[in-house]
């Protein structure tokens, strides 16, 4: 991987802050930075062929429609889906999961039905199901987190004996970096007669995904976590499932015909896309995929692994620091969360910020993970393609300043 070229491609790293320090951005698990090519793709749309899509006869609208649909095809190829009918544009991972909860869930889950979640989920893969469970009387079971920061698959197997209708789990923890064995979990769910929703928000940005091989029934991710713009995400669903699901949001574009008192739904994927979509964002998303494709996802994963390995090694040397999650550095995502026993994560993040180092402090939208680990909050560093070992050194140096200020005298 050509690190120099990558930094070159991301304008945000070219500008030092008011103290002359370049940006050390360690919050890519929250949202990534954007390469120039993504911004230019959107700019070109707005400046040369901006128009609403799908129904426009004129040339600009055709260009816009084509660009929008080209991204859909890129995403299909990217995750190895069978057909673009399986690729639905949403705002983000969160909306994708809610779409399944509202459309599939409300039709197929009933009082007394079981479904399985994990203790490791992001709020976006918990709250929609809590709302549904409350409304319909569905029973939620949870796969616990082991002390090593993995999912307890023994308990999973026991929970599957309750014949759940659906299993929802993340493909990579945004707090602990854990990569659960999704493929095995999915085939176990199928063997037990359950469908499987895989939260890919932290997967797709960081590793190759073959959704046909994984065989997940639903799969959700966000563009903004993989070099793309805010405002657009994806729901993948198996065609036969999507076909059988009722529409979710009603409005323009998701219809074939509308009379005053009735409508007929459009074909997939449009059936689930109501109103003017995030057109520029889809176009930017396409450019983000092109950018990642040109690096190659194996190279991305390898690069992140190297940094993560070094980060864990160096962090463990710091007295009073405890890493939340697996300490192994193989087959692990690049999110590294930790606590320092003498200082609150907010103070850590704030002091690091003075060094122009951006880390996240708090519960990272996963309170139950923190509850499980008996902490209120943690500090998280997460790495991506534009980071290097130097960023780890800066983080460690920053933590030394924290220690000077807050360490026991």
């Amino acid at each position, binding site marked *: 991987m050509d690190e120099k070229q990558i930094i070159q491609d991301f304008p945000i790293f070219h500008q030092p802050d008011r103290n002359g320090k370049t940006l050390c951005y360690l919050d890519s698990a929250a949202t990534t930075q954007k390469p120039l090519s993504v911004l230019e793709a959107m700019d070109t749309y707005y400046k040369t062929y901006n128009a609403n899509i*799908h129904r426009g*006869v004129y*040339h600009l609208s*055709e260009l816009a*429609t*084509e660009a929008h649909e080209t991204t859909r095809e890129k995403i299909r190829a990217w995750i190895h889906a069978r057909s673009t009918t399986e690729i639905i544009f949403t705002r983000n991972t969160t909306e994708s999961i809610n779409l399944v909860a509202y459309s599939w869930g409300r039709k197929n889950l009933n009082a007394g039905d079981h479904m399985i979640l994990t203790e490791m989920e992001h709020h976006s893969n918990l709250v929609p199901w809590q709302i549904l469970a409350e409304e319909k009387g569905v029973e939620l079971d949870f796969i616990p987190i082991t002390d090593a920061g993995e999912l307890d698959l023994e308990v999973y197997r026991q929970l599957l004996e309750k014949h759940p209708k659906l299993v929802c789990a993340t493909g990579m923890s945004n707090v602990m970096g854990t990569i659960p064995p999704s493929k095995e979990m999915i085939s176990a769910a199928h063997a037990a007669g359950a469908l499987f929703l895989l939260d890919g928000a932290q997967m797709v940005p960081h590793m190759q995904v073959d959704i046909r091989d994984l065989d997940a029934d639903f799969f959700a991710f966000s563009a903004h976590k993989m070099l793309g713009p805010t405002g657009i995400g994806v729901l993948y669903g198996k065609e036969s499932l999507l076909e059988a699901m009722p529409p979710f949001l009603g409005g323009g574009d998701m219809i074939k015909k509308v009379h005053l008192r009735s409508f007929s739904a459009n*074909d997939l994927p449009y059936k689930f896309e109501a109103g003017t979509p995030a057109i520029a964002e889809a176009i930017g998303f396409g450019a983000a995929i092109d950018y990642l494709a040109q690096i190659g996802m194996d190279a991305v994963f390898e690069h992140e692994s190297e940094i993560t390995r070094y980060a864990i090694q160096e962090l463990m040397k710091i007295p009073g620091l405890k890493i939340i999650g697996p300490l192994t550095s193989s087959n692990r995502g690049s999110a590294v969360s930790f606590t320092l026993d003498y200082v609150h994560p907010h103070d850590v993040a704030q002091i690091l910020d003075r060094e122009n180092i951006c880390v996240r402090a708090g519960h990272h939208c996963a309170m139950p993970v923190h509850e499980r680990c008996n902490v209120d909050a943690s500090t998280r560093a997460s790495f991506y393609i534009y980071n290097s070992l130097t960023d780890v050194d800066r983080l460690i140096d920053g933590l030394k300043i924290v220690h000077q200020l807050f360490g026991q005298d």
Partner: protein
Amino acid sequence: MDDLYRENILDHYKNPIYKGTLEPADLSFEDENPLCGDHLRIDLRVDEKGNVTDARFSGHGCAISQASADLLLESIIGKNIEDLKKLTKEDILDLLGIEELGPVRLKCALLSLKVLKGSLYGIGQKDEDL
């Protein structure tokens, strides 16, 4: 794009040869273009060997969809329905004498093919399979 409204197409639109209905017909199918609500029906008469002996289209739509229907029916008279199943998008563009068409107008151009194939295969044929 600029050859879209050549004399040939305008002629087939303004003075269609195969516009009308066949009662009774051996095969009959109708469908519409959801983008604009244009509606097309095709009636076919077929002999024992499966050769098309007569054909008509009815409905309403733009010049492209109407002309393509007229041109398509003209081209299939005498053909066997097994051959009709092999017709592709390119065949329609050839008939219209145009090389490329934007996605929206393509749906207009292909509506007649979609309806024709529908009459052969039954309901639910997807555009992508054309």
